[in-house]
């Protein structure tokens, strides 16, 4: 009809078969984030020189690394530093982007210009490069990685929300609210926000994927995490030198990254589909 997306709350009931693969993977990952360390059979960090570089077996399902640490336990424990980070960064970035995008898109004029030029400047750095620079300067700590990735997402989310807000702000129901004498806050948060919300939900789900990829890439480059933290990207980096004699050192963490990001992509795609958003928003 008018092209407006259905409200988020009407979506929740009615799960369809197509949603299941993504939902299951994401659910499994959530369980790992919460329970990962306590599910691991062995310690993720303790050395065991007697069992160094053992191939996968019943005792060590994913094999062991050069220090004899159980790769299976490390992969389970590694979910938290990778996934929690990505989610936190996506949440922070999308939240900042929503507020700035709404404000810029509705207020227009000088405020819009100033905000969007700053966003443009942030966007003129390639994402990974910006994150890298920020983490290097802030020092290696999970909170710094979150801040850096959120800084990458912020301008992108702001741009998206702004473009939708600009379009919505010309709709007559906003004119109706203004002519009624509603306050700016009412219009922004009571009239505009519910209409932007489905798009934000989808944007968030896509950002989580990007966040996983960015965090994993940073870790692989050795930025933001310090050994012996079992982050998946770092495990790949450290295992790479043994790729010819012990490929399991890279294969299992790679699979974990792949599974996590594919799960979030699938779920995000389903969400986008459900909310009937036009394509092209994918993978941003």
């Amino acid at each position, binding site marked *: 009809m008018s092209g407006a997306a259905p409200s988020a709350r009407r979506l929740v009931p009615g799960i369809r078969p197509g949603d299941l693969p993504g939902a299951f993977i994401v659910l499994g990952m959530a369980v790992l984030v919460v329970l990962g360390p306590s599910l691991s059979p062995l310690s993720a960090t303790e050395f065991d020189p007697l069992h160094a570089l053992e191939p996968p077996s019943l005792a060590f399902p994913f094999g062991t690394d050069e220090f004899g640490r159980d790769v299976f336990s490390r992969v389970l424990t590694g979910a938290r530093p990778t996934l929690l980070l990505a989610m936190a960064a996506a949440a922070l970035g999308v939240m900042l982007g929503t507020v700035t995008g709404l404000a810029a898109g509705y207020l227009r004029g000088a405020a819009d210009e100033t905000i969007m030029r700053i966003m443009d400047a942030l966007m003129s750095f390639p994402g990974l490069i910006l994150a890298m620079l920020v983490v290097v300067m802030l020092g290696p700590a999970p909170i710094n990685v979150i801040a850096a990735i959120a800084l990458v997402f912020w301008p992108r989310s702001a741009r998206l929300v702004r473009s939708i807000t600009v379009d919505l702000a010309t709709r007559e*129901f906003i004119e*109706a*609210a*203004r002519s*009624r004498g509603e306050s700016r806050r009412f219009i922004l948060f009571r009239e505009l926000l*519910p209409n932007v919300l489905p798009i934000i939900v989808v944007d968030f789900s896509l950002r989580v994927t990007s966040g996983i990829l960015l965090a994993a890439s940073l870790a692989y480059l050795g930025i933001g995490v310090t050994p012996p933290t079992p982050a998946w990207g770092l495990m790949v980096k450290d295992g790479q030198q043994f790729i010819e004699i012990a490929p399991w050192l890279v294969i299992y963490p790679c699979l974990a990254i792949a599974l996590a990001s594919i799960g979030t992509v699938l779920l995000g795609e389903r969400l986008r589909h459900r909310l009937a958003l036009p394509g092209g928003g994918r993978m941003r």
Partner: protein
Amino acid sequence: MNAIGQLAPPVLDVRNLSITYGPLRAVRGVSFSIAPGEALGLIGESGSGKSSVAYAVMRHIKGQATGTVRVDGQDIMTLSEPALARMRGRTAAMVYQDPMSALNPAIKVGEQIAEAIRLHRAADRSTAWTRAVALLERVHLPHPSEIAHRYPHQLSGGQQQRVVIAMALACQPRLLIMDEPTTGLDVTTEAVILELVNELRRETGVAVLFISHNMGVVAQVCDRVGVLYAGQLIEEGTTQQVLRTPRHPYTVALMRAMPAIGGPRRRLAAIPGRLPDLRTPPVGCVFSPRCAIAEATCHDVMPELDAAGHAGSTHHSRCHFQNEIHQRLPPEPLMEEEAVTTAVKGRPRLQMVDLCRSFRGRSALPFLRGPAPVRAVDHVTLDIPAGRTLAVVGESGSGKSTLARCVAGLIVPEAGDIRLEEAVLERLVQRRPRPAQQAVQFVFQNPDAALNPHRTVAEIVGRPMQLYGGLAGRALRRRVIEQLESVKLGERYLDLYPREMSGGEKQRVSIARAFAGHPRLVICDEPTSALDISVQAAILNELLALQRRHGTSYLFISHDLGVVRHVAHHVAIMRQGRIVESGSPAAVFGAPREAYTRALIAAIPTLEPRPQPVSLPT
């Protein structure tokens, strides 16, 4: 023309055409034919299936079609894809509703015409181009050889539609299908396009299938008319027969709902109820649930499309009582003229004093300079008395909507005053005190966009009461229900979202919201132009009733002179930001002083064919 028509084989012969979109039965058993050189109009409101029929003739629909469609003797339902491509554009060509989007933005218009000629006539490049230029001249475009090199966005809406018509005529088709070709164009542009169609019909002898919702437009062009309702052809005959002596209650109802510019002022009659659910259409007469004269048989037995009057008549109607309709239907109610003519003494409710507002154009690309500023409202001074309606009439770009938004405080005028009962109002609505905000309310054109899709009816209508009256809880709910009942919606609408309602219902909610805070002035910006005629009548009646009940003043913006004549106490004609003429409707429409007003009135498509072409003063 009819004599020839009955001898020669028809150009288009549609037999028993049915179209379904999934469970939706959009078109059921439609049959008609068009003789060479003949023009048949198909009239219908939204949901009647008229566009589906038009595109089915070109075999370009998403749904499933059954029946036969013969174009120039060929059954297009069985054609192969290449044969279909040869038919399209050569035997039958199409003219579309929105010419701007129907033309390819990346291709010069001359090339778009020449392409068709090259494809179907195997002409070389230069011959095709020469012929394209000739065609542009044929549709009376100035400087055709120069226009051929332009891109669509460099042309006006009327020029674009001429290009589309030239493209359709490129290969001298036998049949021209026109799908609402003038909808969205200004009335003066519409008149010249219709005149062009008539001229081309006379000179090329092309047959026309003309789809429209506007009976006046169809009357200007067509020899015969068919009326579609809920996917069925319910009446068919010559234009004179159908529009003068309709034999189906639906056609009669449509005529009675249509506001006219001439003749005595009637009360518009709305059609009660709504379109039947096309997934499970009624077993009997499809119109019976809304029909004023329906009897038991009507609900049980579907009438056939039978000859009306005597056997062998060219006039057919799908009604059991087709020969006694006029005895059975109640007479048309007239309106008392008295209410219109009495002048109101005393201070005006609203005054616009010397308002001015101009706009800077937007450039096509970022980083480029835009065009020069345009004066949208240019020294406008107007008054509205208490309880009266001032209608501002103009074509697109006349500045009438900008004027309305200046009064509402949505757009800030550069100069001039707005006075509400002689108190000067702040220019920006947010700066006005609550009582002033409450006093002026707005009803918008597009009911889809005017309601927040994420709010229920209760929230939408209740909001002004909360804001202005501080109502809450049960008291609020009771007032909302009262308010809904006053626009003939009930309690059951409370928890609906806008998308769950029809266009007319949404507009009623909009009106309920505007009246929720007891306004003294309501600005109506084209409140019915997005609605079907039958719904429009109901909304206009509602607005008139509310005005009588509450003594509200209206600033009524419209492009439709018929609607304006029906609701206004005072009319102002606006053109290029200025008021060119104003006065009582009787004076302005009966004895217009300005040439522009006369041209505007002459351009209105009435049920009478126009004797001579309309010319627009420059």
